[in-house]
């Protein structure tokens, strides 16, 4: 028996040793493939008319062409993509687009105005999550077939119901103007679904990368489009693996098992930036961490209390620790990078000031109040710190953690006192957030709706002079800083950590501007 045991032990140990040595010698990532760890569990569909999630819109941006996109380097500028040129009529209601000749879909079909017309109509007709962006301009399922027209084989015309600021419409279009291959899509139509059933897991595009495979919650594989009209990508393949654990991402990156880690926390970014084999690339995104204070609560109804709370956040301490590399201090409702964003941050942690304000409001000893948030790491850590600083002025924060849906349901029904969460712009135009924070839905949820204010928001939306429009937004933000029931704290910064030998990854101001086509591996 003993010899048996010994030989079994020895045998297995030897096997382990041999395996271990052979494994360690292997090359880490293939030279022609970009290997990226990324949380892609928000993908629910590959259909561009349905995609409305962060990671999914990044997929869309790399595999499809849009008529126009926003310039990643200068967000107030547009870049032409599938459109060669565009113009707007004198009455400001009709937009005309010339399609760039020579763009080929994966099927080999050439892109024409008919494809663009079909895509835009399909976007509205399918009426999925992002369709409301186009509905804003009077393009509805009933009239879209008349309003979006082919003028000649390479010219598309779109008619709106009113003259909006052209920058407003074009900013929205930069997300919604994906062009799909009409012929391919319609070949897979079933029961008049405009090919939606098929497109949920398939592809009919013309972008710098072609779609190869998608395993939900697992992986996404893209392959270079060698005949891309704007030049073929330098890398042959992009492999995205869903790695939900940020610690695992860090480990894999530092070991060279992946080229890019996309979801590191602030502490991890600080840690990997010391690694000589790793470099950091980051860009502020249009998403804000904020507390929504419900003015239905009699304490919060007093503007001094709201101001006091704005003084009870350790902006600098948090910014240097938990949010180091993943967030920047930002207190106005327009994120940096959007037209008219006001980047001054007048508030800082000031307990004395807060106490004065609370005393003025009639609460020298503070009060108890509940705060709802989700049980995700960032929200949890942030709420713990807020609990700490609020307590210093006597405000006893009772934190209620629940899953995202439960919390949001409560928030949407305006049944909260304080809500802590993140709000991302629906599209890259200041109106998205101005409407959100000052009219609806956030203003409604926090019971802070006012007719005069709403009029100012709409006036800013329709202002045609961009400089004037920007100033109108600055004024609104200054007012909100003083009075609003929002304690806006941080703007999300998207940070990618890359191996030193990887160059050319573009991390843009929005997820649909994160681009792979210039990536090279040395």
């Amino acid at each position, binding site marked *: 028996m003993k010899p048996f045991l010994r030989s079994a032990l020895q045998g297995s140990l030897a096997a382990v040793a041999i395996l271990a040595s052979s494994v360690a010698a292997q090359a880490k990532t293939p030279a022609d493939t970009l290997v990226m760890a990324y949380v892609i569990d928000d993908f629910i569909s590959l259909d561009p008319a349905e995609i409305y999630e962060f990671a999914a819109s990044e997929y869309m941006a790399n595999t499809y062409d849009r008529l126009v996109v926003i310039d990643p380097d200068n967000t107030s500028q547009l870049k032409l993509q599938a459109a060669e040129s565009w113009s707007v009529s004198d009455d400001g209601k009709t937009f005309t687009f010339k399609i760039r000749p020579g763009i080929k879909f994966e099927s080999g079909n050439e892109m024409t105005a008919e494809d663009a017309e079909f895509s835009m109509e399909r976007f509205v007709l399918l009426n999925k999550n992002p369709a409301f962006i186009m509905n804003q301009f009077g393009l509805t399922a009933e009239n879209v077939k008349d309003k979006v027209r082919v003028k000649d084989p390479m010219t598309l015309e779109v008619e709106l119901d009113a003259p909006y600021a052209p920058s407003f419409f074009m900013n929205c279009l930069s997300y919604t103007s994906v062009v799909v291959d009409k012929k391919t899509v319609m070949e897979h139509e079933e029961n008049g679904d405009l090919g939606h059933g098929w497109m949920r897991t398939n592809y009919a595009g013309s972008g710098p990368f072609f779609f190869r495979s998608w395993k939900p919650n697992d992986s996404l594989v893209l392959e270079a489009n060698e005949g891309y009209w704007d030049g073929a990508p330098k890398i042959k393949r992009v492999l995205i693996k869903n790695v939900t654990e940020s610690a695992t991402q860090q480990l894999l990156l530092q070991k060279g098992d992946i080229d890019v880690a996309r979801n590191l926390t602030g502490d991890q970014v600080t840690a990997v930036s010391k690694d000589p084999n790793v470099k950091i690339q980051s860009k502020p995104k249009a998403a804000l961490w904020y507390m929504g204070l419900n003015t239905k609560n009699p304490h919060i109804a007093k503007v001094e209390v709201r101001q006091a709370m704005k003084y009870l956040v350790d902006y600098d301490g948090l910014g240097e620790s938990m949010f180091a590399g993943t967030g920047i201090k930002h207190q106005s409702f327009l994120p940096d990078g959007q037209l008219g964003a006001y980047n001054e941050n007048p508030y800082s942690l000031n307990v004395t000031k807060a106490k004065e304000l609370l005393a003025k409001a009639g609460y020298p000893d503070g009060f108890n109040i509940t705060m709802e948030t989700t049980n995700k790491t960032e929200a949890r850590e942030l709420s713990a710190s807020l609990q700490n600083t609020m307590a210093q002025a006597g405000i006893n924060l009772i934190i209620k953690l*629940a899953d995202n849906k439960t919390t949001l349901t409560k928030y949407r029904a305006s049944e909260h006192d304080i809500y802590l969460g993140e709000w991302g712009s629906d599209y890259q135009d200041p109106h998205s957030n101005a409407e959100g924070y000052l009219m609806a839905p956030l203003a409604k949820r926090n019971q802070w709706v006012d007719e005069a204010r709403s009029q100012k928001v709409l006036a800013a939306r329709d202002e045609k002079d961009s400089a004037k429009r920007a100033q109108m937004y600055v004024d609104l933000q200054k007012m909100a800083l003083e009075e609003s029931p929002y304690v806006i704290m941080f703007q999300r910064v998207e940070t990618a950590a890359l191996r030193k030998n990887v160059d050319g990854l573009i991390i843009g101001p929005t997820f649909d501007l994160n681009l792979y086509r210039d990536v090279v591996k040395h």
Partner: protein
Amino acid sequence: MTDWAIAVTPPRWRRWLLAETPHSRLQARLSRTYLSWVTFARNPLAMLGLIIVGILVFLALFAPWIAPHNPIAGDLGNRLQPPGESHWLGTDQQGRDIWSRIIFGSRTTLLIIFMVAITAAPVGIAIGATAGYLGGKTEAILMRLTDAFLAFPKLVLALAFAAALGPGIENAVLAIALTSWPPYARIARAETLTVRSTDFVAAARLSGASDLRILIGHIMPMCMPSLIVRVSLDMAGVILIAAGLGFLGLGVAPPQPEWGAMVSEGRTQILEQWWVCTYPGVAIFVVSLGFNLIGDGLRDVLDPREG
């Protein structure tokens, strides 16, 4: 001198306990228990387990006096400090003292164990004793139910329960209790079957006691000893499941310290600040080992054949 005398002639209480012919049921019972204890105490590993659990209880009871720092209030300027003089086990990402959080976390652990025991055991005993006492169809149905629950994967089911109910200590306890009562029901049924036909139950029935009264007053108390042993054997498993729930964010609501959640929170810093997730894991391991050692010792005493 006197010490020596004690060693030679055992004191009266010991003699009474070790009497070869007990004079009463109570004496027989206590005598058996005492002999078991002697066997148990001779097992050094079991005693080690007892000491570990003793320390756990001590820490939990006197946490506010033992812990050097506030386990909840953080200090961002002092975060992720390595183990040192002012913070023995370092600080976490909120700047909280890990040693103090581990000490206060012992309360959470004990609370969960205790709550699971007082929730699952009564359910098990009620179902098992009822089934055993009433017999017939009731028994068939109740025991089928028990068997069905016994065939479930415990951890996965507890996860599903906790995920549906949402995080929180009550929900974690409920989820664990819902999956851990079946063995107790089996034991209670087996015990009931042996006492159902004894004289004193028959006597009680003759004197007109109702079924419910007999169940609660006569049968259930008889099931208690073996049930208590079984529950204590399960404690280590309960600790591990609770820690697993905490690790997946389904345990206690923050900022209350819980060891599994502490490991999970420290995971993001594992490469640079290894202590944040290492020490809470050690705590889980040591305490669960303590309970397992006790359980192992108990098994030796109660079932020498298997031991």
